[in-house]
């Protein structure tokens, strides 16, 4: 037996022979790019480093560029909106009664100073959280079962196919009839929104488990349960996490429909109420709040699930 592996010898040799070139030869010092990044920090890079994981200078540049383009694009949209309302644009699309960005901003600033606004947000977030979490639990479970068992697929998928296209608003009467409290009806509607994308993505991922990996696990002595845990679930993770992010978006999407039921709080209720009171700036404030909070929560889901996929990002 040649007990000393040639790779180790080579690395050790390189480290001794060329102390200055050691950084290139030794994989132990892979953190060099990050330390370089810290040395020459521009404000942009600092922001990027704060926002995301520590990145290489090149990636920081690309990140900063991408975000400046995004923000500029949004700014251009707001300017066009301001312009269209300022000139009372009315050519097929009518902007005459649309509140201008300035008016919406004024309304927003006023709300931000009131406690009630935060209650609306907190109540909505709590509903989304409960509905979404229930959907995550049930959705992943059902998705995995559907993906791996033909019988389960034949039993469950007709329900999914029929229920999936039904819009959240259409559920309002039944939700009220089915559930004991107003609150539970609202949560049920946000839950439904998140459920289907999670089930479908999970099932898709579980179906695509590479056969050779299952065979490899079997020949290493894995039983059905171990194969499920060590092979099927990790192989489905990229799909599952995609489903989780989409599900979060759809959950917010359904919120307004759910909160039409509510008589008091919630950002969806806030929007619906503004509609009833013909308070145009508030409608837009509510819409944008739903959009903004939805985006933030989707981003939070992506951040939270990212460590699960570290094996993917580290590929060559």
């Amino acid at each position, binding site marked *: *037996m*040649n*007990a*000393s*592996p*040639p*790779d*180790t010898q080579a*690395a*050790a040799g390189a*480290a001794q022979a060329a102390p200055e070139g050691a950084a290139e030869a030794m*994989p132990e010092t892979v953190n060099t790019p990050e330390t370089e990044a810290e040395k020459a920090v521009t404000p942009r890079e600092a922001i990027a480093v704060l926002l995301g994981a520590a990145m290489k200078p090149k990636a920081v540049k690309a990140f900063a560029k991408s975000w400046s383009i995004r923000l500029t694009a949004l700014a251009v949209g707001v300017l066009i909106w301001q312009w269209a309302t300022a000139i009372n644009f009315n050519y097929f699309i009518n902007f005459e009664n649309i509140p201008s960005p300035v008016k919406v901003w004024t309304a927003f600033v006023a709300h931000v100073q009131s406690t009630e606004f935060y209650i609306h947000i907190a109540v909505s977030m709590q509903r989304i959280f409960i509905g979404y979490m229930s959907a995550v639990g049930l959705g992943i479970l059902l998705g995995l079962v559907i993906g791996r068992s033909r019988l389960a697929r034949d039993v469950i998928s007709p329900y999914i196919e029929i229920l999936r296209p039904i819009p959240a608003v259409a559920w309002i009467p039944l939700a009220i009839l089915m559930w004991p409290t107003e609150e539970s009806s609202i949560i049920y509607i946000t839950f439904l929104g998140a459920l289907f994308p999670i089930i479908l993505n999970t099932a898709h991922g579980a179906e695509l488990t590479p056969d*050779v*990996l299952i*065979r*490899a*696990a*079997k*020949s*290493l*002595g*894995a039983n059905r349960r*171990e194969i499920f845990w*060590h*092979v099927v679930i*990790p*192989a489905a*993770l990229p799909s599952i996490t995609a489903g989780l992010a989409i599900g979060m978006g759809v959950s917010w999407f359904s919120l307004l429909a759910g909160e039409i039921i509510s008589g008091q709080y919630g950002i969806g209720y806030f929007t619906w109420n503004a509609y009833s009171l013909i308070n145009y700036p508030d409608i837009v404030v509510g819409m944008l709040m739903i959009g903004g909070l939805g985006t933030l929560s989707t981003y939070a889901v992506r951040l939270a699930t990212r460590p699960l996929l570290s*094996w*993917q990002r*580290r*590929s*060559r």
Partner: protein
Amino acid sequence: MIANIINLSRDKDASAAAVQAGKNLSSEGKGHVTIEDVSVVFGAGADAHTAVESTQLEVHPGEFLCILGPSGCGKSTLLNSVAGFVQPSSGTVAVDGVPVTGPGPERGMVFQQYSLMPWKTVRDNVAFGPLLAGQSKSEAQSIAYTFLNMVGLTRFAKHYPAELSGGMQQRVGIARALANYPSVLLMDEPFGALDAQTRLMMQENLLRIWEDFGTTVMFVTHDVDEAVFLADRVVIMSAAPGRIIDDFRVDIPRPRTTDITTDDTYIQLKRRCMDRIRSESLRAFEQQNH
């Protein structure tokens, strides 16, 4: 630096222990494969296709056997029936007297495709088998390091498979199969996807490990050079239906290096393989034309 040296010496001890364990396996006479009158038929009725026809084969403990044949001749099917992935339509496969009914860790498998779990580190891939066998996490990891050291990849223990080259991934695959101390190592064209230089290195590396470990090896290949270079004994299979048409010993002393490729015995045996395969291909070709 010092830590590195300490690591190395610890690895040395550990690998010596592993080698000892491997030797123990073969000295007990384990790894005796008997294939009796095995046929494998896929499909039914008019679509039925006989992949392997009434095949008889005995592999002795510690023997390095190469199954050589053109693609589609059923050599992988025969191997898979030993692995337990394919149930023979008739006949029996047994390892050390125990009939094969399904896959199991005592028959280690190295696949042609990359088959490491991409979400497990190199170390955890190798430790997976011992862990399934009921070893504690730390025991399983120390076994993993032992075998990673054997294939020279200790340095990459904490990397993910996607960060490794194809040849390195297959070395991890070999370490993973050996970590269960199998009595038979089944290899299905494991170096088929590698470039010629890497393949040569892998072959030499495999022989070194096998000479230390001493387990029975069944190695499927369509490469004549590979078969003669590696094997104690070569069996040649013909296609449609798959059956064994030749069976001979390779009496070239070990340890072997690439130098033996100019050896007279080597050249004679290589010619024998090529003649056999050529006449079979011609026969098959004529059959198709009639």
